[in-house]
């Protein structure tokens, strides 16, 4: 049966208005219409990636996953699919998809940002379990997450990339402490997470011991596509609120701003088309380093457009919505004020790989230029200066 027919049959049998969002998403998973390129029984049909577009189109307007599921859907799921055991896939993918279980990402540390492979959070074997100690930062959603994808150091005596192991971490386990981390926007969208003697069973390990770097690469490639790969219409995305202000306020327009806005409009459209072209290339394959480039382009655009918008608003640009320290569950780029957008966009070139690291990735993995000269390549992690 064609994917199209399956969606129609599914809709005939399931009325979204007669069931909860969780039930509807669960039924969608069971029908293989969550992510059609996943295997049967795991929310998919073993179909091609491009068929997902057909599904999204036909199911538009029905209840879908929410923003809190972003890390689970965009990063944890593809990683579990690629490296998980059959048991792990059966256990985690369905509640991840329905939103019954929320995921976060325990990667970055105070001492390991761009140099992620230098991370220091230790996992030490204790019988059938692992004991984890360390500190993670910039963890979105840690305060409401049930599970985390976690990278740890299991062998400090080998060079840094070889001594890492990847786990699924139970965020409700003893020894997991989540503290809000206030950002330049005034609120806490991120957290720092302290792991003190956290006991994780070996069945929570994802991939082989010492294989953590390879597993993390899968997560990161998917993250960059998730950050940069959104589908927009011409004039949509981050440029939309700027255009709205421009049209609503003729009195704010100047010749200089007009030229700059036109240049950015062209850049936004060129970037949108390049993203669409990349998605066409990716439909058959898996995310490659090209996704890093699109993320690079979108973060620059977000920053320049939001900066222009604050300037355009003149006196209003001198104001700010709300500095109150509070938790925020998702990044609300479009429903908030220009000042928030300007400040929040500064994170775009830092989160998910800084723009500088992404340029290294493009130049080395896409263009084949020589790798950075490095002092840490063949040295055991424990002997590295830090």
């Amino acid at each position: 049966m064609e994917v199209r027919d399956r969606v129609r049959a599914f809709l005939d049998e399931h009325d979204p208005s007669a069931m909860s969002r969780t039930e509807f998403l669960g039924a969608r998973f069971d029908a293989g219409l969550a992510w059609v390129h996943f295997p049967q029984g795991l929310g998919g049909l073993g179909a091609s990636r491009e068929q997902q577009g057909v599904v999204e189109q036909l199911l538009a307007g029905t209840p879908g996953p929410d923003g809190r599921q972003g890390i689970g859907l965009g990063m944890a799921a593809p990683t579990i699919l690629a490296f998980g055991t059959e048991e792990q896939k059966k256990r985690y993918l369905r509640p991840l998809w329905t939103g019954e279980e929320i995921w976060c990402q325990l990667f970055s540390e105070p001492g390991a940002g761009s140099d992620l492979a230098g991370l220091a959070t230790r996992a030490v074997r204790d019988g059938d379990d692992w004991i984890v100690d360390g500190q993670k930062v910039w963890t979105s959603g840690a305060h409401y997450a049930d599970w985390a994808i976690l990278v740890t150091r299991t062998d400090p005596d080998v060079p840094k990339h070889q001594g890492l192991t990847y786990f699924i971490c139970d965020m409700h386990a003893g020894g997991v402490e989540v503290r809000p981390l206030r950002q330049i926007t005034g609120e806490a969208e991120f957290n720092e997470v302290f792991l003190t003697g956290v006991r994780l069973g070996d069945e929570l390990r994802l991939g082989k011991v010492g294989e953590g770097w390879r597993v993390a690469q899968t997560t990161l490639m998917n993250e960059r596509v998730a950050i940069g790969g959104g589908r927009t219409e011409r004039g949509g995305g981050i440029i939309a609120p700027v255009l709205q202000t421009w049209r609503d306020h003729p009195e704010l327009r100047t010749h200089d701003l007009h030229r700059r806005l036109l240049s950015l409009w062209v850049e936004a459209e060129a970037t949108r088309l390049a993203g669409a072209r990349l998605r066409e290339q990716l439909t058959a394959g898996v995310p490659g380093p090209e996704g890093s480039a699109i993320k690079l382009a979108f973060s620059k655009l977000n920053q320049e457009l939001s900066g222009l918008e604050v300037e355009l608003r003149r006196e209003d640009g001198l104001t700010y919505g709300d500095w109150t320290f509070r938790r925020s569950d998702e990044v609300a780029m479009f429903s908030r004020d220009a000042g928030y957008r300007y400040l929040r966009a500064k994170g775009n070139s830092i989160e998910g790989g800084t723009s500088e690291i992404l340029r290294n990735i493009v130049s080395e993995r896409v263009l084949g230029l020589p790798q950075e000269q490095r002092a840490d390549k063949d040295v055991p992690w424990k002997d590295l200066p830090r």
Partner: protein
Amino acid sequence: MSLLYSDLQEELRGSVRALLADRCPPSAVLARVETDTPYDLDLWRALTTEIGVAGLLIPESLGGAGATPGEAAVVLEELGRSCAPVPYLTSSVLATTLLLRSGTPAAEKLLADLASGASTAAVAVSLATSPYDVKSSGVTVTADGLTGTVTGVAGAEPADVVLVPADGKIHAVTDFTVHTQVSLDQTRPIATIELDSARSTRIAPDTEPLTYALSRTAALLASEQVGVAEWCFDTTLAYVKERKQFARPIGSYQAIKHRLADLWLDIAKARATARNAAEDDPDEITIAVAQAWTSPVTVHAAEECVQLHGGIGMTWEHPAHLYLKRAKADSIALGTQGDHQDTLAKAANIPATPHGTGH
């Protein structure tokens, strides 16, 4: 609508690239630029007879191949990559599109000759003409024929026939004199066309086909520019991997790696806009975006090529300058970045300040 290349287009690209690799190496292009024959007519004959590039946009009923702009765009990419001195853009795209749009019997008669490459045409307007601001020519029409001078015309030297806008109509003329101007772009020089009581054939009763053809040619010019940018990028990338200073390839320095990563991304965006503009019936915004983005990116690619080649990039013997000159000339051809942005302001509803300078 796909932004990727079809298998057929890749096949066409392969044929054109192979022929150009054989007959149009940079050394041959360079050797020609200071001769009296700026266009390589042997190469043009090979492209038209062996591959049939001239008739791509012409329907089969008129002797052409009935292909789409997407195929013509791939040919332009390859010609741009080689800075090939052939009248493809000027005859097989600009003049051909004008004739197709006018659709008169006289136009169709000319198209049959153009399709095979047996005859070549040029349009007697400056290459610097913006599709959004086509001014009337200085050519006058009297009982004796057409008289006047048109400057800045590209592709005039090899043309058998020129299409001349005059008196609000378009005329075909075969009796004309060409004087090549000393041109910035040495691989597509501009020339002055002189008409002295020249007899003509009426091609179109108004100049709408000219405006249309300029706009559609601007759309496809973006693909030529992508080809130029791609050569500059590939050549530079190969050079920085090989050139050593301070006992390291210069391409191992972040200052250079990061510039090339940015340039690669800019060219990837240019390719996406150019593919979008090579669809069958692009709207005004699509064309303006392709030009407004691709023109400055291509110039930047050529400038980076010269800079990152260091001393050798500044020499006459290295072909980088041919691409710099083509890139800069292309950025003026058929509307500048600013002209295309002005059109976007109207077409995409981004109005200028109501009081001139605003505050």
